[in-house]
């Protein structure tokens, strides 16, 4: 085979391979959302985190602002300590409210941040004071049945 034709085919092959990698990272993956921006770390103590996982999204008004980086259990308070890294460009007041929510009925769990009105902003390493635990279906059903039973007794 001619040297030039050979080079052409190999060049096309390598370009197709690199193109495939680009498509994978940009179209299939989420490289375009990695803006490499700096993040700061904040913590939150939750009574119950339900099915929250590491790398779960942190959203505010539905917009992705950060991710959960680690989940630990504290034997001092017997609470779960969730560490999340928030993008530097999103600053939240000190009295921000963090709750564990579920997207859809069976969807993944995420942390929702509702900004408060404080003048001071959360800084690196701060802990969110106001948190709301995940809804656990069994507890909800249990409470509902209990209420129902006490209602019936009233009559």
């Amino acid at each position: 085979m001619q040297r030039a034709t050979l080079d052409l085919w190999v060049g096309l092959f390598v370009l197709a391979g690199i193109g495939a990698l680009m498509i994978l990272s940009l179209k299939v993956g989420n490289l375009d959302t990695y803006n490499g921006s700096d993040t700061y770390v904040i913590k939150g103590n939750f009574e119950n985190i339900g099915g929250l996982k590491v790398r779960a999204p942190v959203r505010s008004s539905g917009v992705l602002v950060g991710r959960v980086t680690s989940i630990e259990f504290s034997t001092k308070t017997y609470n779960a300590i969730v560490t999340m890294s928030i993008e530097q460009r999103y600053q939240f007041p000190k009295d921000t409210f963090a709750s564990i929510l579920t997207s859809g009925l069976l969807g993944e769990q995420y942390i929702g941040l509702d900004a408060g009105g404080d003048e001071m902003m959360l800084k690196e390493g701060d802990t969110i004071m106001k948190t709301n635990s995940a809804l656990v279906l069994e507890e909800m059903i249990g409470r509902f049945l209990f209420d129902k039973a006490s209602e019936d007794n009233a009559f």
Partner: protein
Amino acid sequence: MPKRIIAGIQKTGHRTIEGVRRLGQATRFFLLVLLKSGASVRRFNLVVRELYYVGVLSLIIIVVSGLFVGMVLGLQGYETLQKYGSESAVGTLVALSLVRELGPVVAALLFASRAGSAITAEIGLMKATEQLAAMGMMAVDPVARVVAPRFWAGVISMPLLAAIFSVMGVFGGYLVAVVFIGVDAGSFWSQMQSNVDFRIDILNGFIKSCFFGVAVTAVAVFEGYDSLPTAEGVSGATTRTVVTSSLAILGLDFILTAFMFRGL
């Protein structure tokens, strides 16, 4: 009776020693190829030539099988997911299974049978027809001239082929799920993009395919170089290449997956 038992034990021992000896030979040969890769860098057109035979000619089988694997994943995924009313997650299913596992593994298995066997047969036949010995006579090192370019061509083409396989698979899944069945295109792509992570999924899949490329081509060049210089020896070596490299791919895949995705 004890004689027979002793003979049996001896046989086991002999086989073990042979196996270890071969493994050692293969490792030494692998290091030798790495050591003599200088010529492949200096005369890169040798590698380009092999890239054509190893990479470009494998494209057809990779593209076609990637497309079909993706289409089957789309169909099967849709069938199961629609029972739970979450058929829009079919994009995530197709992309994750392709990028993490099927892309690197199936592409490597196809590569082993398409290109690995060809490398072994070619080198084996060169040895059987004493071309390698003739090169040695002319002070041309056959490892540097024949083996190393093939090895590097395989190592370079494997990750590229795996990426092409994954992209074709995602396209096949899109074709079946969105175009034929009618899953919403927006949720197909957005669910896929929010669940496929660049570092965890795509980069790890890429690293996997690099490992497979080294494993497959190292086995292929060693079996070819080590084959008995007869017609039977070459055919045996070709079979061993496909069997050994397929097993190596699956074994390596388990080990790599255990390291990459544990605890996620």
